[in-house]
């Protein structure tokens, strides 16, 4: 296509792909020319061979990590959204809880992992809780700030119709919070796989984190690269799914963008 649109497409799609290919070629050539050992930096071709070799093993690990991430995401979103509603509905409770919740975020979630393992064992539960804790906060914060930033004009309008606080909450504040909560969810979705993997570093029998730790112990650096690629792809897929759900849930924003 020689239209201006075609030129833009070339720039936006073709040029990053070309850069990516160039980087891979440069990586391959550098590793081969400098004779870096495969247990320090593997070449892209080594990573490809490792991927083919480990593919039969990876399925189970991916399933474990996805289960943890999915359950954790669902739990974190549910608790975060419910708490946001409580904070919006009962200001006194909100004033008491919200600063505490915010302050609790000074604790990096991952440092809680040993405690969670101590309390909830080596199985699925501590990892789901860890993912949920990671997801919970961005959902809560974006939902609460969306509800707080609802234009006073809209709640005034409901009051002008004769509505009380209950009507304002139901007809204005809650629906207004939805896009905010969803953008928090979109942000949270990018954390979930990573959080699940890191929680597997500490304990577990299965999962991409376990696979990475085993590969490290065996100096199979090529396998670590395979796992990193898989994590990146899974995160991207999860993000696209969540983003699509968000768009479906807010149809009025579709052609406003």
């Amino acid at each position, binding site marked *: 296509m020689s239209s201006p649109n075609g030129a833009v497409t070339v720039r936006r799609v073709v040029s990053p792909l070309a850069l990516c290919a160039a980087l891979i070629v440069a990586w391959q050539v550098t590793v081969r020319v400098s004779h870096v050992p495969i247990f320090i930096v593997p070449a892209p071709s080594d990573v490809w061979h490792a991927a083919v070799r480990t593919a039969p093993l990876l399925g189970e690990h991916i399933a474990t990590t996805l289960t943890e991430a999915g359950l954790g995401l669902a739990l974190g979103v549910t608790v975060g959204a419910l708490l946001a509603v409580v904070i919006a509905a009962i200001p006194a409770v909100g004033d008491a809880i919200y600063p505490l919740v915010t302050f609790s975020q000074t604790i990096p979630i991952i440092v809680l992992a040993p405690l969670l393992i101590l309390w909830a064992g080596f199985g699925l539960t501590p990892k789901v809780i860890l993912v949920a804790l990671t997801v919970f906060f961005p959902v809560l914060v974006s939902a609460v700030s969306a509800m707080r930033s609802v234009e006073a*004009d*809209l709640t*005034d*309008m*409901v*009051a*002008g*119709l*004769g*509505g009380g606080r209950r*009507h304002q909450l139901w*007809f*204005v504040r809650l*629906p*207004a919070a*939805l896009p905010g909560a969803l953008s928090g969810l979109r942000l949270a979705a990018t954390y979930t796989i990573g959080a699940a993997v890191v929680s597997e570093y500490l304990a577990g029998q299965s999962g991409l984190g376990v696979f990475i730790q085993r590969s490290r112990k065996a100096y199979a650096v090529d396998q670590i690269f395979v796992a990193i690629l898989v994590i990146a792809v899974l995160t991207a897929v999860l993000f696209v799914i969540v983003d699509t759900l968000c768009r479906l849930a*807010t149809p*009025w924003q579709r052609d*406003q963008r």
Partner: protein
Amino acid sequence: MTTFRTDGRVLGVERLTVTFRTGRREVTALQDVDLTLAAGEFLAVVGPSGCGKSTLLRALAGLLLASAVVDRSSTITVPRDASGRPDVVWMPQQNCLLPWRRAMANAALGARVAGVPRAEAVHRASEMFERFGLAGFERSWPHELSGGMRQRLALLRTTLTGRSVLLLDEPFGALDAITRRSMNQWLADLRRSHDGALPSTVVLVTHDVDEAVTLADRVIVMSSRPGRIVDEIVVATEQSPRERVLAALSVE
């Protein structure tokens, strides 16, 4: 003290004085305003910007801002419905349509807030869509409507609460002059039809003199701050004999 009386369907204020306190500053918005409205009357309140006409309307709606202080000697009278709630409905200057509701659901909101179940609220709204020049746009999002349509939709939402007194705060103030003129004509026709599409008693706040005399039976002129009533004009009814007969028939 502000007292609320329930003596019939009359709306009014006596010696209404409202002061705003922001920090140490005190601004008197309204000073000794007396006003009475008969049932079925269309009153327009005109005055320069900042003369307190919106405050007067908010006082009637029971929606004064937190920073507003009503003088102890003031009396505000609003009609009450059977359950004791104020039988008035207030429409702000901005259309305040909810962007996540389609036109139909936005219109139905008024009835929903008044306690009407969803299906019945939608039914009532759909019956009025044609009258409000919105037929065919039931499933449109607010941002897809023209400025005039949004304002008519907001007015439809307001009237569907079924309240007997309508309080309008510069409802067409945000529209361009041409659209505003056609909206005024449409609203005048709607009122003249006496078919219950519009509550019979209306207070309209505006700074547009043409709008006031086109729509109202009586016009009150307010001074700049502190707002007082400086003049009152009864607008000659320009009803044709045919319209008068029709009006008399529908009043019974």
